[in-house]
């Protein structure tokens, strides 16, 4: 029963988030600030994770290729496909759910328990729209760039790991990366990323906004935000894969 109530509250929240903003200029400034805060500031962790993720995918693929009939370019092909279709959009989004989601929930949760949200409401500001809409726009706009960045670094990580260890040559790996390439795979990955970005921000904002109590409850909301964002991302991943690829 409580889940149904929560879903109802979440839908109501989304309705309020997308109501007409009071002042476009203020929202525009906030959106730019959010792009920096939740997008650009996440580039470092995305870069480190992507390089090592790609390196491990390539090495594991190489180590599992027992048959001499399999061409070496398969390593590059599998690294590219796994990275573009699944690892970059989904795993990086799950990591961002942890980093960005907890940050959003604790920021909004702290504003709630320190009455800053009440102060906004008293002034006549639609607090949900003011706080959440710029974050959603920033994430949906910028996360695809982060994921493209991640794809590139991940393939690069794979390339260096197999060429340095002598498991495949430069030509073999690059041929594999370019083999059977479909633009629709990139489109599928970016559509998923936009949906995941929306989920991360909206679910985390929901838990932050409806925080009640004090510091302990802000921490609890932050944890719940990460847990539920991750679960909803995995569910959405399944549904989107069925809808787009099948």
């Amino acid at each position, binding site marked *: 029963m409580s889940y149904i109530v929560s879903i109802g509250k979440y839908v109501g929240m989304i309705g309020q988030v997308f109501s007409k903003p*009071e002042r476009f200029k203020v929202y525009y400034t906030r959106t730019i600030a959010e792009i920096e805060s939740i997008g650009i500031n996440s580039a470092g962790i995305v870069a480190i994770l992507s390089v090592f993720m790609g390196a491990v995918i390539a090495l594991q693929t190489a180590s599992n290729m027992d048959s001499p009939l399999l061409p070496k370019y398969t390593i590059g092909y599998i690294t590219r496909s796994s990275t573009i279709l699944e690892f970059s959009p989904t795993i990086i989004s799950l990591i961002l759910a942890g980093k960005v989601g907890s940050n959003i929930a604790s920021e909004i949760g702290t504003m709630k328990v*320190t*009455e*800053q949200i*009440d102060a906004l*409401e*008293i*002034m*006549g500001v639609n607090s949900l729209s003011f706080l959440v809409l710029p974050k959603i726009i920033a994430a949906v706009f910028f996360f695809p760039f982060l994921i493209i960045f991640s794809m590139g670094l991940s393939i690069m990580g794979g390339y260096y790991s197999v060429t340095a260890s002598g498991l495949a040559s430069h030509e073999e790996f690059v041929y594999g990366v370019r083999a059977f390439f479909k633009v629709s795979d990139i489109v599928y990955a970016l559509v998923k990323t936009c949906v995941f970005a929306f989920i991360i921000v909206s679910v985390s904002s929901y838990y932050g906004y409806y925080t009640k109590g004090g510091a302990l409850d802000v921490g609890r909301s932050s944890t719940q935000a990460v847990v539920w964002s991750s679960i909803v991302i995995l569910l959405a991943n399944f549904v989107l894969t069925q809808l787009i690829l099948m």
Partner: protein
Amino acid sequence: MIEVKNLNKSFGENHVLHDFSAQFEAGKVNLIIGQSGQGKSVLTKCIVGLMEIDSGSVLYNDRDFSNMDRHERKEIRKEIGMLFQGSALFDSMTVEENIMFPLKMFTKMSKKEMLDRANFCLERVNLVGQNKLLPAECSGGMQKRVAIARAISMNPKYLFCDEPNSGLDPSTSILIDNLIQEITYEYNMTTVVITHDMNSVMEIGDHIVFIHNGRKWWQGTKEEIIRTENQEIIDFVYASKFMKSLKGKLA
């Protein structure tokens, strides 16, 4: 003037406010006093619309706030300033940005006009030159004064103060009280202050409402409250040994 008529508010089985009615006049500092847990903060949140009421009505100069939709309420809220117990300053913004925030959101002032207004408000609360400080760099008293400056930046008709003296030393408390009183008279605002600080009651209370068990128990002036024979008020006003001894001497 703000008029509250037969206001009821419950949380599940817990009936917090019972048929509460009161009038808060313009140009006066109206105090709502009572022990902790009697419903003072809930009453204020109901009056300003942060909580929905179960029944009754709240009228701002005869405009029925309780029956308005979100957009109509928004217009009334632009006429309301509120000083929160913990100041509720936006901690990512400087003092100046905090004061300019409502102006940015709801007026078409140029940046220079907004800065002039912010400086005027800061001067009014004796904080000239503190524009660039962050709330975390301000003392408790300074934060309250910045919150008052933000509350008056839009020239509100109604000012609500939720325990403005909590966490402040006695001399800073009196400073804040006097500031609230001065701006109330200066701008002819309807000011409602929630407090359980007897110093505030005696310092600035033009009209006092005593709330007990969610009901309006008594109302009067600060002169009347020290002479009342109402036992609940006597228990509240003369709670400390010092005040009891004072009452003995007065008697």
